[in-house]
C-alpha cells in the first residue's frame, strides 16, 4: 500500500492510498461535517455539506468521496468553504419542514446539529418544502417526505444493507423523492419493517410509530393491570439515549425506572426467551428424530422464527421455504400469551383488563404484535410495543434521574432469566442458547465449549457456520450418536438471502439456521438509539456476552420460573397446550 503525503490546513499528514480527505482530516483531529455519509453504507456524495477547498481545483471538493493524492493541499475552513457550507445548509432548510419543536427528532437531528453550528438563517430563501401526506400505513414506522433531505441513506440501506429494496429514488429535479414501488403505501410493499432505514435517517423523515401516549394512558387507567417486558438488547443500549457511552449495561436501573413509571409488574422478555428455547429446542429434536430415527421425510434445515422482520421477508421472498421455519412464536409473543393466561390465572387477574407493553430494540415487533393471529390468549397478546428510544423519552418525560437510580430486580413469575436468554440479543445468541440446552438434553452433558461459550457462532461476520459432533448420547437419543450437527447463522437480510438461495437449491447442508433481520442481531435493531455504526454495535455485543458470563444460571432449561411454568401449566415442551398458545403459522405474501 502506497503512503500519500498531503497537507490539511497547512498541517502535514501521511495516509494510506485510497483514504478520503474526510478520513485523513479525522486523523488530524479535524471534523468535517457530513450528512449523506454513513459508515455502514457506500459513499453517496450528494449532500455537498462536506465540501472543502483543494489548491488547484476548479470547484470545491467533497471530502467524503475524494481520495487524497500526493501533494494535495487541502483547506477545510476557508471563507469559501464556510460560505458554501452555509449556503448548502440554508438551501436544505428552504426545502425542509421547519416545525422542529413538534418533530420526534428534535434535538437528535443531524440537519439541526449542523445548522446550529453555522447559526443558519432559515428563511433566507424561498420556501420550497413539499407538503405531501405522511405515510402512516405501517404499524412500525412512518415516512414524512416534508422532512426528507434526499440524502438517499434509506435507499442505500434498504438496497445495500438489507437487499430488500423497498425504497427507491423516483423522478428527478424538483420532484425527486424517496418512494416505494408505484408510490404504494409502505404496508403494501415488500418492506419488512426492520427499521434499519429509520436508524440511519438523519432527520425526522423516518421515525417509528410511537405508542408512548397509549402506554401512559394505560398506566393511568386504574382499571388496567399493566405489565411490561424488556428485550435483552434493550438493556445494553438504553443508556446511549440517556447520556451513557455505548456498551454500558443499565439493566437494574431500567427495572427501577419501569417500576417508577407505574407498571404493575416489571418482567423480562428473557424469561420468554428461555421458554422459546424449550419449545424450539424440542421442536428441533423432534424433527431430527423424525428424520434420523423414523426415517420419514422431514423439512430441514429448521430456521428460527423470532425475528419478525425476517418473517415478513421470507413470506415475501422465499414463500416456498415457510415450512422450514420453526412454528414457535417469538419470545415477545410467547410472553404476551403467558401473561394473559398462566400469569393472569395464577394471580387471579382478569386478562381483559391486562395490558402487555413490550420494550423492544425493534420496529418490526410493532408489526408482529399487530399480526391478526397473535391472539392465542383470547385477547391481543401484546398490546403495545415501544422501542428503546421511546422508553428513553418516557423516562425523561417522567422526570426520572436515570443515571442516579438504584438497581432493582424484576418481578416474579415471568421475570427470571438465564445467560442463554440474554444472548438472544446478539447474532448467534439464539443458536448458542438452543445448543446449550439441546446438547445437554441429548447427552446429559454441557456443550463441549469452554465456559459454555460457543465461539464459532459469535461475532459480526455476515454468515457463520459451525459443526458440533454429538457423542455419548443418552439412551432416548441414541439415534443422534455420532451425528455432526451443522448449524448456520446469518444476520442482516442480505446475508439471509445468500443462505436462503442455498437452501432453495438444496445446497445448504445444515440442520438448524438462525436468521436475524438486523446487522449484529437485535442489538442493531431498528428501534435502538441513533446513531448506529459497527463500533457501537460491537460494544453492545460485548456487553451482552459480559452479562451472560456474570449470571449464575446460563442454560434455559435450568430457569426455575420456566420449570415451574411447565410443571404447573404447560406440562411439557410441545404439549398440546404449548402448541395452542406458543406456536403459530405463516403466510405467503406477494413479491411486489
Amino acid at each position, binding site marked *: 500500500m502506497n503512503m500519500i503525503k498531503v497537507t490539511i490546513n497547512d498541517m502535514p499528514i501521511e495516509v494510506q492510498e485510497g483514504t478520503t480527505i474526510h478520513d485523513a482530516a479525522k486523523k488530524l483531529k479535524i471534523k468535517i461535517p457530513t450528512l449523506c455519509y454513513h459508515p455502514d453504507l457506500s*459513499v453517496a*456524495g*450528494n*449532500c*455537498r*455539506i462536506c*465540501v472543502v477547498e483543494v489548491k488547484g481545483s476548479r*470547484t*470545491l471538493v*467533497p471530502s467524503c*468521496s*475524494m*481520495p487524497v493524492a500526493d501533494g494535495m493541499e487541502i483547506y477545510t475552513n476557508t471563507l*469559501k468553504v464556510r*460560505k*458554501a457550507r452555509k*449556503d*448548502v445548509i440554508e*438551501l*436544505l432548510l*428552504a*426545502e425542509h419542514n421547519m416545525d422542529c419543536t413538534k418533530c420526534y427528532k428534535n434535538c437528535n437531528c443531524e440537519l439541526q446539529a449542523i445548522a446550529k453550528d453555522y447559526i443558519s438563517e432559515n428563511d*433566507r*430563501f*424561498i420556501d*420550497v418544502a413539499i407538503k405531501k401526506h405522511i405515510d402512516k400505513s405501517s404499524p412500525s414506522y412512518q415516512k414524512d417526505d416534508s422532512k426528507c*433531505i*434526499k440524502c*438517499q441513506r434509506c435507499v442505500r440501506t434498504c438496497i445495500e444493507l438489507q437487499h430488500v429494496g423497498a425504497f427507491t*429514488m423516483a*423522478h*428527478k*429535479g*424538483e*420532484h*425527486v423523492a424517496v418512494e416505494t414501488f408505484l408510490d404504494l403505501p409502505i404496508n403494501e410493499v415488500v418492506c419488512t419493517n426492520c427499521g434499519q432505514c429509520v436508524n440511519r435517517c438523519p432527520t425526522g423523515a423516518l421515525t417509528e410509530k410511537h405508542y408512548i401516549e397509549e402506554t401512559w394512558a394505560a398506566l393511568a387507567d386504574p382499571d388496567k393491570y399493566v405489565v411490561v417486558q424488556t428485550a435483552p438488547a434493550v438493556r445494553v443500549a438504553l443508556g446511549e439515549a440517556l447520556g451513557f457511552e455505548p456498551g454500558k449495561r443499565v439493566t437494574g436501573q431500567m427495572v427501577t425506572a419501569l417500576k417508577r413509571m407505574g407498571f404493575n409488574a416489571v418482567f423480562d422478555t428473557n424469561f420468554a426467551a428461555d421458554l422459546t428455547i424449550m419449545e424450539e429446542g424440542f421442536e428441533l429434536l423432534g424433527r431430527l428424530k423424525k428424520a434420523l430415527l423414523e426415517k420419514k421425510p422431514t423439512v430441514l434445515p429448521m430456521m428460527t422464527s423470532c425475528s419478525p422482520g425476517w418473517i415478513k421477508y421470507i413470506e415475501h421472498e422465499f414463500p416456498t421455504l415457510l415450512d422450514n421455519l420453526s412454528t414457535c412464536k417469538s419470545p415477545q409473543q410467547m410472553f404476551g400469551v403467558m401473561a394473559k393466561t398462566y400469569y393472569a390465572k395464577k394471580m387471579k387477574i382478569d386478562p381483559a383488563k391486562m395490558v402487555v407493553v413490550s420494550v423492544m430494540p425493534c420496529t418490526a415487533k410493532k408489526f408482529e404484535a399487530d399480526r391478526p393471529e397473535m391472539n392465542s390468549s383470547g385477547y391481543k397478546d401484546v398490546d403495545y410495543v415501544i422501542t428503546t428510544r421511546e422508553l428513553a423519552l418516557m423516562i425523561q418525560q417522567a422526570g426520572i434521574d436515570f443515571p442516579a437510580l438504584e438497581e432493582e430486580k424484576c418481578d416474579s413469575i415471568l421475570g427470571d432469566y438465564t445467560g442463554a436468554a440474554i444472548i438472544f440479543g446478539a447474532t448467534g445468541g439464539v443458536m448458542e442458547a438452543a445448543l446449550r440446552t439441546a446438547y445437554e438434553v441429548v447427552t446429559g452433558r454441557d456443550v463441549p465449549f469452554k465456559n459454555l461459550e460457543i465461539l464459532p457462532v459469535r461475532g459480526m461476520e455476515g454468515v457463520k457456520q459451525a459443526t458440533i459432533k454429538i457423542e455419548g448420547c443418552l439412551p432416548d437419543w441414541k439415534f443422534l450418536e455420532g451425528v455432526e450437527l451443522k448449524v448456520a447463522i446469518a444476520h442482516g437480510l442480505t446475508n439471509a438471502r445468500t443462505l436462503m438461495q442455498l437452501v432453495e437449491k438444496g445446497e445448504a447442508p445444515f440442520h438448524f439456521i438462525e436468521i436475524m433481520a438486523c446487522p449484529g442481531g437485535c442489538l442493531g435493531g431498528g428501534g435502538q438509539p441513533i446513531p448506529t455504526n459497527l463500533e457501537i454495535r460491537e460494544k453492545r455485543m460485548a456487553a451482552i456476552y459480559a452479562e451472560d458470563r456474570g449470571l449464575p444460571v446460563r442454560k434455559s432449561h435450568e430457569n426455575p420460573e420456566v420449570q415451574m411454568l411447565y410443571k404447573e401449566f404447560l406440562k411439557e415442551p410441545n404439549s398440546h397446550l404449548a402448541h395452542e398458545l406458543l406456536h403459530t403459522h405463516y403466510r405467503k405474501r406477494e413479491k411486489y
Partner: protein
Amino acid sequence: MINEKLKKYKKKIDIIFSDTDCPAILDKGLKMSADDIIKELIDSGLKGRGGAGFPTGLKWKFASQQKESKKYVVCNADEGEPGTFKDREILDKQITKVLVGMAICAHTIGADEGYIYLRGEYNYLIPQLNKEIEKFNAELKKRKVNFNIYIKSGSGAYICGEETALIESMEGKRGEPRNKPPFPVVEGYLNKPTVVNNVETFVYTAMIIQNGAKFFKDLGTKDSRGGKVFSVSGDTPYPGIYELELGMTLEEFVELFGDGDTKAVQVGGASGFCVPRRKFKDTIIGFEGVPTGGSMMLFNSSRSMYNVLHNFLEFFCEESCGQCTPCRVGCQQLLKGIESVKNKKLSPKYLDDLRNMSDTMRNSSKCGLGQSVPNAFNSILENFKEEVIY
C-alpha cells in the same frame, strides 16, 4: 435562404460532411500503433466537441494505459443541450465516419465492445443506424478486428448527456452522475475503463487519422484548434447546421447569421453564456472565450430576456437529477426568485442574494449541470438586468 456571405467566408470548412473513403481511414488507423494514434491526436489539439472540451488524445491515452483487459468505447449521442441539433445530422448523414472513429479508438485503447448511447428522442434513427452498424461490424470482422458496436437507447433525460450519468443509464440505473474520481477512463461502464466521446469528436478523430494532425492544427486558434459544427437557430434568416473554424468573434458570427437586429446570442445552450451586442466584438467563440457544444441561439430586440432566462431555469429545474443540494434546490430558488422579483413579491435586491447563492451552485454542485446553471443566470442578469426586473 442561401447565405451568400457564408459562401465567401474564409473560415467555412467542410470536413465533417465531406465525402471520404472511410474504409481507407479504417485500414490506415488499424495499421497505426496506439502510441502513434495518441501522439497524432494530442498533437492536433483536438478537444471534446460535446461542450466540455477535454483533450481527446489525453483521454484515449489514459484509457489505453489501464491494465484492465475489458474496455469500452461509448459514443455520446445524447445531444440534449437546447439548440443543439448537429449530432442528429452527423448520425443521419455520416454515420460511417463515426463508426470508424469508434473503431480506431477501440484499437487504440484495447476495447472489444462499443456503444452508441442514442438520445431516446432520436429513436426513429435506430433502424437506419442499425443497418449501417451491421455492415460496419461485418467489415471489422473481415479485417479480423475484435470489436462490435451496439446501440443503447436513452429515455429522455438531459442529465444523461453527462458521461457518468450516461454510464449509469447504460447500466440500467437512474441517470445520476457519479463521484469523480474515479473517471470513466479508469472505472466507467460496468466499472471498466471506458472512453466516452461526442459524435462529432469521433468524426474529427477519423479525419485527423486520415489527414494528419497538422491539417487540423492549422485551423482555429492556439486554444481552440480545428473546426466545429454549429447548430444555428432563433432570430436568424439562416437557421441550420454549419461547420466553421473555431476562434471567430461573435461579431463575425452575427455578421453571417444575424437578422440585422441581433440583441444577444446564447452561446452553448441553456448551460452556456449570453453575450450581449456590445460584447460581440470582444468575445471569441472557442475554449478561450465562450465555448459551445454547437448550440448558437440568436435573439433580436423583440425577445424578452426575462422569458429566455425563465425558460432556461424551468429547463434546469426539470432536468436536474435532483441528487445534490446546490443544484436541486438552487435551480428552484433561481426560478422562483426571478418570478418573485418580476411580480414584485420580492425586491430587486434579492437578485444579488441569488447571484451570491449561485456561486455555491458553481463551486459545489456534483456535476456540470449544476455548475453551469449560473452561467446563463449571471450573464443574462448582468447584461439585461432591466428586462429581468421590470
